[in-house]
């Protein structure tokens, strides 16, 4: 199949970018979106031009490196997939495709489609952990955890930190990401001792960098792991409880 691509090209953080148009021809419907970009890049290199820079690594939807806006939707039109798992069979021959980097004040563009997502790590540093030093753990089965609780925690823990939630949110909010981590840890018995302190600290750092939630639920729609916005409600509950308690 053949497609026309309009790709955001930007040489560095400090320069202005613009769209460039490329033809992707002879693409197999079985190729992934990234493999399609590989093909385009090989042609660019053959012409002596710089390839389109984009982040990617595992290419099986788990590392969270890849991510781009494809025709105005984070990770493209499929829902529940990262860009690396989006296959070209979901496009039509002759389609015109606009490819843009994640946009948010917290995610400045580094080059082409690569953005700096480090504020997400800062949210984790604020409290996205259980403070237990190596060696001090008790026997694993000492603490029974009801299966539904563990399953729910796992639903939240699946987040791959790709940043699609922020990119898709018109407010550039990182609520889904933050709420997922708060819920993962806050649902489990191990996470109880720091539960309320954690939510206060993580929310504070989140709000330093990101916007606030207006419940559009765009994040949930594009999340490769389909993490539910119910976790945002849960975060709000813990936050309000923590505020009342303090």
């Amino acid at each position: 199949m053949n497609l026309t691509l309009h790709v955001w090209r930007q040489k560095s953080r400090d320069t202005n970018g613009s769209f460039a148009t490329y033809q992707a021809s002879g693409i197999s419907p079985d190729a992934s979106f990234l493999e399609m970009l590989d093909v385009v890049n090989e042609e660019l290199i053959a012409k002596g031009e710089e390839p389109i820079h984009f982040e990617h690594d595992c290419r099986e939807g788990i590392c969270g490196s890849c991510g781009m806006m494809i025709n105005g939707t984070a990770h493209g039109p499929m829902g529940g997939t990262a860009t690396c798992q989006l296959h070209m069979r979901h496009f039509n021959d002759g389609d015109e495709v606009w490819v843009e980097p994640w946009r948010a004040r917290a995610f400045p563009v580094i080059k082409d489609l690569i953005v700096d997502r480090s504020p997400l790590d800062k949210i984790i540093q604020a409290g996205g952990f259980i403070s237990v030093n190596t060696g001090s753990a008790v026997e694993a089965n000492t603490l029974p955890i009801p299966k539904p609780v563990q399953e729910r925690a796992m639903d939240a823990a699946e987040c791959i930190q790709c940043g699609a939630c922020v990119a898709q949110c018109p407010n550039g909010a990182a609520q889904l990401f933050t709420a997922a981590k708060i819920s993962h840890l806050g649902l489990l018995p191990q996470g109880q001792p720091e539960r309320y302190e954690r939510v206060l600290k993580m929310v504070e750092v989140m709000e330093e960098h990101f916007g606030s939630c207006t419940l559009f639920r765009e994040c949930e729609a594009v999340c490769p792991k389909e993490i539910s916005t119910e976790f945002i409600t849960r975060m709000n509950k813990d936050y309000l409880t923590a505020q009342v308690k303090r």
Partner: protein
Amino acid sequence: MQLESKIPPGPIDKKWEYAKSHYKLVNPANKRKYDIIVVGAGLAGASAAASLGELGYNVKCFVYHDSPRRAHSIAAQGGINAAKNYRNDGDSVYRLFYDTIKGGDYRSREGNVHRLAELSVNIIDQAVAQGVPFAREYGGALENRSFGGVQVSRTFFARGQTGQQLLLGAFQALERQIALGTVKQFNRHEMLDLVVVDGQAKGIITRDLITGRIEAHAADAVVLGTGGYVNVFYLSTNAKASNATAIWRAHKRGAAMANPCYTQIHPTCIPQSGDFQSKLTLMSESLRNDGRIWVPKQQGDKRPPQQIPESERDYYLERKYPSFGNLAPRDIASRAAKEACDEGKGIGASGRGVYLDFADAIKRLGRPVIEERYGNLFEMYHDITAEDPYEAPMRIYPAPHYSMGGLWVDYNLMSNVPGLYVIGEANFSDHGANRLGASALMQGLADGYFVLPVTIGDYLAGQLGKKVALDRPEFTNAIADVKDRVGKLLSAKGTRSVDSYHKELGSIMWEYCGMARSADGLKKALGMIRDLRQQYWRDVRVTGEGEEPNQSLEKAGRVADFFELAELMCIDALHREESAGGHFRVEYQTPDGEAQRNDDEFLYVGAWEYKGEGNEPVLHKEMLVYEEVKLATRSYK
């Protein structure tokens, strides 16, 4: 070069205890005076950096990703082994030790493996305390499943994302230390050289992947947790950026490379579908718990699978290995698939594939049970192939997955270069010639959480006040070397892209140094690799500049190192005139096609010393001593 394994004395189950009781210690107040560099933040690197930080050391952690959480450990699906015996099925530390030794085809160190088995139980405790949401029974206790190569259920898992959840546990512990200031994190920094001062590892050279700046960093010890090297095959299950540069640079600075020919080909991956393909996707080994592997009995039978009657199917693993059946170890399952395809029974358009069939399991257990166990894997398969595995059997084929070989380390995980520690997949230590499923996560975390933080003190205790300054010639020379290499790659301005060379190198390696190797093939491959490498340095086209983000340049450096590593892999494979685990030499097989070891001549670790550009590497042998386990022909029949 002296290769002293430093296995502690005493009975096998008391060695680690003995070692811990006799290591020199660093006074808690002095720990902050030591700088330790950790390169890589996968399971091994992140757990090590976090644990060292908790102890009070000054840690600098380097990763080339934008966040430590992206390391390829995150992609491990199936699970992690631990000898908890929660299932009351006769598991024990000794059994896990024995299974691992046997699974490794008797090419690993007894002392290391026993320690690994002992620590396996602590890992689960640690991970649970960190909030890793392992699967649970309805009563709230941890759930287990079985995995290839063993007859007990000792594998802990978190859906099909066990690696992800364990890595997040380690990552979160690391982020906690970053917040506390004990660990300084350097993201988007790639290690491009090791700095050795007076024979001791004292620092590294990195390239800042944003600015392109080449920088030196000094420390009292350097820890490499930089993963494996099977991307030398180009198409593998590894992440695209996984590379051998850190360990290869260390090798060129004096660290011995052990058993580089031991690479694991994983039996259950989605077959390649075209030339555009950039990587192969693994389908968790856990699928073999319920899936049955078969090919048509008739050569060239191209009927759709559902139309092939039972009597015309060959469930070859169940036929050849009745007691282990579809759960035969990875090397055996992979080779059996290759044999079936070589006989012309392969399925799919390319003829390089076999069926993994769930029809029986769905009939026996019902679709909901299968959905609960493997739902996300089935979905992933469906996404990639557009085929529904609930309706038609999966098509699978082996793919390069893991490297058992790596930098040589002693019992303390220190390489032959004092002060250079190597952990996780980057070292050679625990898996012998073949790794059992669900053991990689175990080893990475054992090394990082429990072994290295203890053993490193033994070395550091003698290093107080022996810091080196960055203006020493060893640093400035290393920086100059790195800049020179970068400059050469940028100035070749040839005709072909880095990827095109990488693909060509990969296909040579897959053909001649893959699942089956022969002396003739390996010699041929050596010639081809050397020619291609020369052409590469002349003709590669790297676009862009050095002082900016430049993915072509990053790849170019990694592929240059893969060329040299590939050569050493072939040399190692050629010299090892036996078949063992993942290393199968067609000249050495039993009449029924099984691997034939030669314990009389090859019961050793083959560690190679780098002798400079254009010189043959020199082999050093660390003889393997089996005191506990009796050497036997591995049988899974």
